[in-house]
């Protein structure tokens, strides 16, 4: 949307399938995210949510339309758009938690003493101040996700791209991290694109939720402002009403996917 900080404008993206016709993942995606906004993208499996995030991260390139951040086209990955991945395979297992957090600063040539101090600040910030000497394999799933968040924050990345970061965690840890992420985002004023399948998680976190159509050639179907005060609780009647509304929109798309899968069998 023209004028937005993050601007997907009529974005097309396809995967080429050998000699067959191209597999269009996105067709005419229009999506705008404002600076400092927490935007959550929902949609049925395979609708192109992760593709949209990968495009914004610079891992993939648009085949049609345009994608820009702050008016500048996205052409490659950059430290202004750090991704927080699902699971722990993006952490460097041979580095301690502290060294993992320092990694981006080391790449940028920041002197060792400075990067140690900054990494320690971020570890304290995410509640892992005393765990810096441990290796990722010695930390819980929730702690590993906090390390990823600290690694992004230490680089002062204005945009956080989060691809189902809490999907592999147990419900209790997920709830704790959702609260913590809300606090972090409000304190740092980061712009967040967050992908999830969990409607409840979307309502707890988002300023705005975008729901995508089922693919192929997906785009945004509907956007919903989440105007509930924070912290948000699942027992709140307004929460329930929003949940039902999003669920109804999403169900249509999921049913469409199931019908198509049945027809192709």
């Amino acid at each position, binding site marked *: 949307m023209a004028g937005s900080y993050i601007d997907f404008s009529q974005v097309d993206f396809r995967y080429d399938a050998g000699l067959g016709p191209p597999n269009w993942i996105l067709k005419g995606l229009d999506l705008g995210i404002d600076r400092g906004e927490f935007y959550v993208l929902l949609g049925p499996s395979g609708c192109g949510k992760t593709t949209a995030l990968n495009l914004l*991260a*610079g*891992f993939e390139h648009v085949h049609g339309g345009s994608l820009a951040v702050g008016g500048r086209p996205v052409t*490659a*990955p*950059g*430290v202004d*758009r*750090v*991704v927080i*991945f699902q*699971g722990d*395979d*993006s*952490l*460097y*297992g*041979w*580095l301690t938690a502290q060294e993992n957090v320092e*990694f*981006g600063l*080391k*790449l*940028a040539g920041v002197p060792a003493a400075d990067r140690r101090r900054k990494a320690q600040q971020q570890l304290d*910030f*995410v*509640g*892992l*101040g*005393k*765990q810096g000497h441990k*290796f*990722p*394999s010695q930390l*819980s799933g929730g*702690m590993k996700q906090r390390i990823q968040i600290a*690694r992004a924050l230490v*680089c002062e990345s204005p945009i956080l791209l989060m691809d189902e970061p809490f999907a592999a965690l147990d419900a209790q840890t997920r709830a*704790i991290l959702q*609260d*913590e992420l809300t*606090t972090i985002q409000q304190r740092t004023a980061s712009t967040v694109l967050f992908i999830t399948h969990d409607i409840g998680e979307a309502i707890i976190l988002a300023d705005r939720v975008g729901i995508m159509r089922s693919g192929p050639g997906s785009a945004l179907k509907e956007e919903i402002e989440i105007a509930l005060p924070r912290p948000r609780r699942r027992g709140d009647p307004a929460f329930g009403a929003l949940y039902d509304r999003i669920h109804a929109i999403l169900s249509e798309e999921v049913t469409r996917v199931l019908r198509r899968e049945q027809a192709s069998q």
Partner: protein
Amino acid sequence: MTSSSDAMAATARAAGSGGPARTRAAVLKRVRGTASLVLRYAVAAAAIGLAWELFSVRFDSPVLFPGPAKTAARAVELIEEGRLQADILVSLRRIVIGFAVGSLVGALAGLAMGSSRLIADLFRPLVNFFRFIAPTAWIATAMVWFGLGEASKISLIIYATVFVVLLSSMIGVGAVAPNKIRAARCLGATDRQIFFLVTLPGALTYVLTGMRMALMNAFMTVVAAEMIAAEAGLGFLIYNSRQWMETDSIFVGMLALGIVGLMADRLFVLVSRTLLRRFSFH
């Protein structure tokens, strides 16, 4: 940050505390572990010795199948003559040089092939062709090309080492999780930084595993290399003893190979674990 984080940190502090009692328990556990390992090795050695003795008695020919006692006596003779130590040292020197050069070449080539599709496509057919030709098939040509001296023997060990390390290193590069590389790109890494700070450490366990397997190949190849045109070495000891029907000396040579090989393997594992421990964490 939140009370939950504080609680988690407190739990970790509690788990990390314990002082001298905890240290004592850890030392005891380690001592018990080492004692148990030595005991298991001793039991295995005793079982092999017993089976050997039973077979040699049943074979009933001390010349063709000497028992442990006769072999041990021959080993003592060879040690007193200084021959066994000399043969071990000669073979070890060849193995160490061949293994080091082969590992270096194999690791560099494997990392390059794993990192570049172009290099992989260029060299994969050659690698897949040559790796199926046994080092022993090259003995005659190695002697013709490199002479009867050390070069021909060491070149065979290099050949026996290089492909195992190369393939393992190449697979190691492919096994580095794509998200590790993507995360580095997000954080501003250049291609060079990605290679040295992500790909290389990520593939290191595979390189080491390949080297460990290649060490075994090096020991096997040195025997073949020393059986022809050698004047010293464990392979020479075994081959030369065959001509004089000194089966006990052959057994001594084989035992020496096994023991030195076992020690070399344990040393390799110990050094890898001590110096590169952190790389086994991913």
